[in-house]
């Protein structure tokens, strides 16, 4: 009973959608349309944390959170690269994660896409030159799309995913990608 009174008293506390939200919805719909055309189903994403500070993770989690709730458009995160169409890699690649990242890439079935999220994934950011860092993501595996930002907003991540899907779409006739 206390639970119910609390629910009623508290009301809805979800933040209202930001101004760009309507655009985000169109973006997600577009991603879903393209991935359905490409794969015959929704897009499955495997997220790999290659050594990130977890700033990017917070933003990625935002994609699945109540504001964006991207699962409703068929964008979903899967638990194994075997199920994935796309790898979402964050952070500078540490020495310890270099081999697992490579293995994850190999385990992902073709056709596959790699999206490097955040500045660290591109340049190693503030971690550049550390003894623990093996290098940026593209040193280990080929990257299709970079998303800049420290961290990038969920909206930007969506744009990046759309760009990657579009890239695969365009390259479909002539093999996979460069």
């Amino acid at each position, binding site marked *: 009973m206390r639970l119910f009174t609390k629910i009623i008293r508290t009301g809805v506390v979800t933040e209202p959608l930001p101004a760009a939200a309507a655009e985000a919805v169109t973006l997600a719909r577009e991603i879903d349309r393209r991935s359905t055309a490409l794969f015959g189903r929704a897009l499955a994403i495997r997220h790999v944390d290659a050594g990130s500070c977890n700033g990017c993770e917070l933003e990625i989690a935002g994609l699945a959170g109540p504001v964006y709730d991207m699962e409703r458009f068929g964008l979903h995160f899967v638990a*194994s*690269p*075997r199920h994935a169409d796309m790898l979402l890699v964050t952070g500078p690649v540490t020495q310890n994660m270099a081999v*697992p*990242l490579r*293995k994850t890439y190999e*385990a992902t079935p*073709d056709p596959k896409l790699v999206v490097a999220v955040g500045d660290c994934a591109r340049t190693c950011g503030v971690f550049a030159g550390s003894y623990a860092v093996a290098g940026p993501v593209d040193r280990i595996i080929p990257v299709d799309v970079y998303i800049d930002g420290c961290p990038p907003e969920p909206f930007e991540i969506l744009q990046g995913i759309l760009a990657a899907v579009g890239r695969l779409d365009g390259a479909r006739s002539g093999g996979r990608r460069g």
Partner: protein
Amino acid sequence: MSPLAFAVMVGALAAGAVAAMVWPSPSGARRVSLAAAFVGCLAALALGGGVLLSGVTWAFRSEAFFQPLGGLSVRLDPLGAFFVIVVALTGAPASLYAIGYLRHLDGSIRGRTMHALFNVFLASMCLVPAADNVATFLFAWEVMALSSYLLVVSEPGQEGATAAGLWYAVMTHAGFLALLAAFLTLGQAGSLEFGAMRAGGATLPAAAQAIVFLLAVAGFGSKAGLVPLHVWLPRAHPAAPSHVSALMSAAMVKLGVYGLVRVLFDFMPPLSPWWGGTLLALGVVTALTGVLYSVAETHLKRVLAYSTVENLGLVFVALGFAVLMRGYGNGVLAAMGLVVALLHTLNHAVFKGLLFLAAGAVVHGARASSLEAFGGLIKRMPQTAVLCLVGVLALAAVPPLNGFTSEWLTFQLLIAGARYTAPTLAITLPAALAAVALVAGLAAVSAVRLFGITFLALPRTDGARNAHEAPGIMRAAMVLPAVACLVLGLFPTFALTQLTAVVAELGFPMGQFDAGLSLALPLIGSRLWPIGIAGLVAAASVAAAAASWIGRGRVVVGPAWNCGRIAQSPRAEYTAAAFAEPLKRVFTGFYRPTHEVSVEVHPVSRYFVRAISLRTDLVPWMEQAMYSPLVRAARLISTQVSRMHTGSIHLYLALLPAALVVLLLIARWI
């Protein structure tokens, strides 16, 4: 036909026993004596098959033996013939298997003794169902018990073999005493012939009936592993050599079922439904206990031994159902209960024999006996793995193998029983049904665990890494029961028709099972079409194979995904204990596992932990609660008695005349 087959059987087994001891070359002794055992089993098969198919009872009497007790009397009716077939069906592959399995014992006197005892064991098991008076029966029963006892303790290096043998000897002799008392009560008319008991059973007073029922259930139940008398099974089976375990588990425990069927359905009049209910409840408890321990146990052969307990529990469920229905006067359902009990007896004999032989090959190949020490054996012993898979699938009651038919029939029985008799049964039988369904599900879990942990994934020890395939003759021996599993599963109607005749001969006619390839139960009306199931399975496999063949160009074979770990090690694998852990938690009230966590900390601060170790044990607490007072009492008495044994010959000489005087005095008074 029958006298000839009997003579060949006895002759071959006797010749085998003698040849084992006197044949000049050791390897020749092994081959000749075990080949003789094989021939003896074939003759037993011919003998049983002849009696079963013709339906003609064969009898033979000789006054040359056991004279004061009524002479040697042998009578093979269809029921006995069926059990002779069960013994022969498991004895034949076991003897072939032993030719390869016991090669390492060549040249030792132990090897020769084992071959001789093996022949004696087989002969006694073939004689038990054929015995027709108390003397012959108990003689064969005792020879069977002693020879199997000696075979259990025949591997002195085996840990716990002596203790296992002691448990077995005590349990089997307590059972022997119960049987003796039961037969003496039955033979109150003065005759110890089975024929007289058959005629006089109906006139037995009610109290005597109850006594005979309880004694027979205790005596035969101790052989058949009825809870709480099953304690010897999980001890004796791991200690015995595998071909002996196969025989004991597949054939010897079944003779307990034989004895109970003989006494309850041949000698005794219909009993009060209470007794049937008791037997059924005991069966359910046995099945549940067996399957729960078989899921949790990690010693390969102990897993199988507990699974034997479980399957005998299912047989007792069907038997109890038959007694119950007979008590209610429903002859057709009683007959069906008996048929199902006998069918499951046969099916279990076939697949458990196969599994014990396969377990022997695995233990032999990987030089270990714990499930945790195996892994990846399918790559190293592929043929044994496939044969074992057949047995495991039958154990898990997967159609179209034989375990499925009898389990399906058990369910049908329990459903039908509630429909056709008293309203009390409409409440209790569904409860039994639910318990049996739980048993069936857990048995499947146990089967998956047994096969998966043993044969799949990576080898966990060096023994498993260097395992080798079993010798050809052992594999050939395992093919026989594997084929039998498949045939009995595909054509159950053949066995069922014969069993209907067996049961009709006992005085329980039932409607005919639909002849031909599909099986339809009379009265209940359920149908089973094993060939159809097999066809579906085959069609699905063909379709899957075709699909993978068509899509072969698009399939890329890569290494197994191990979450990106750098090296794949067996330490990441599921272990047998881990597989059982969820069940141990669910049934924690039953298992009552003991946990012992010890934390070793750094001397400077207790916040720096150096090592944490967990030790968890699964002690069968019911056994302890029941048997430890008995064991304590026995210890106490034997210490008291041993005080008399001072070793002084003078005392002994003094005791002799004292005893004589006491005896004379007693004789004078009487």
